[in-house]
């Protein structure tokens, strides 16, 4: 179609925004773990680390939200933060990962993937999406972009 170039550019910057959003989630994990380790900001090293991650996570979130709707961005940011903290908590602190928590992690990750796909559907392929279902339409919409 005539909008191919525009669509590709939009897709590329959208992909970049999602990468920045993932990064924001990683920083959020660092923040959560640092706050936990700082024990009410009484341990200096962890406290400094918490402040640094606090600035990084909000900066990356703000960059990502330039192109991603805030409702989606926040859910992904909080979701990655929760997954990362649950996975890394046992590594740094005296925590354990139970099967029930593992199941909820799978639910969150499934939701994150679903959101990424739902957010990638281009306007031009809306009709195809309605006719063929989400999966093929998403594939068709993003064939030109590496994912």
């Amino acid at each position, binding site marked *: 179609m005539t909008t191919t170039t525009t669509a590709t550019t939009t897709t590329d910057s959208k992909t970049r925004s999602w990468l920045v959003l993932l990064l924001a989630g990683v920083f959020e994990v660092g923040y959560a773990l640092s*706050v936990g380790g700082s024990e*009410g900001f009484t341990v200096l090293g962890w406290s400094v680390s918490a402040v640094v991650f*606090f*600035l990084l996570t*909000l*900066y990356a*979130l*703000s*960059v990502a*939200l*330039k192109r991603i*709707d*805030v*409702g*989606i*961005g*926040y*859910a*992904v940011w*909080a*979701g990655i933060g*929760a997954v990362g*903290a*649950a996975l890394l*908590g*046992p590594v740094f602190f005296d*925590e*354990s*990962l*139970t099967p*029930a*928590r593992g*199941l*909820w*992690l799978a*639910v*969150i990750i*499934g*939701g*994150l993937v*679903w*959101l990424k796909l*739902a*957010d990638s*559907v281009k306007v031009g392929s809306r009709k195809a999406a309605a006719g063929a279902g*989400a999966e093929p339409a998403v594939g068709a919409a993003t064939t030109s972009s590496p994912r």
Partner: protein
Amino acid sequence: MSWVYLGIAVVFEVAVGLFASKAKGFTHAGWTVATLAGGAIATFFLSLALLTFDVGAGYAIWTSVAGVGIVIVGALFLGQRLDWKKSLGILIVIGGVVGLQLSGAA
């Protein structure tokens, strides 16, 4: 009192989402300051609330109400209407975070 603290923490968390959008990658000074201040205030009141709340339950309420609130604020103030697929995805992720937090402290 802890419910009031939790409520304040939710309001500021929702504000952080709005402010971070307005700050456009920290290129707008005023919204950037508002984002950082909002984040600090939200964290402060959350930690106050969690002194008396069960940590898992308190955190679950905080994230879920804030997550839904941010969708509403995004629609009202940023004109971001979400289709059912995106809304469903947000519900799955937030539901997962709530389930994770309620399935026992790690």
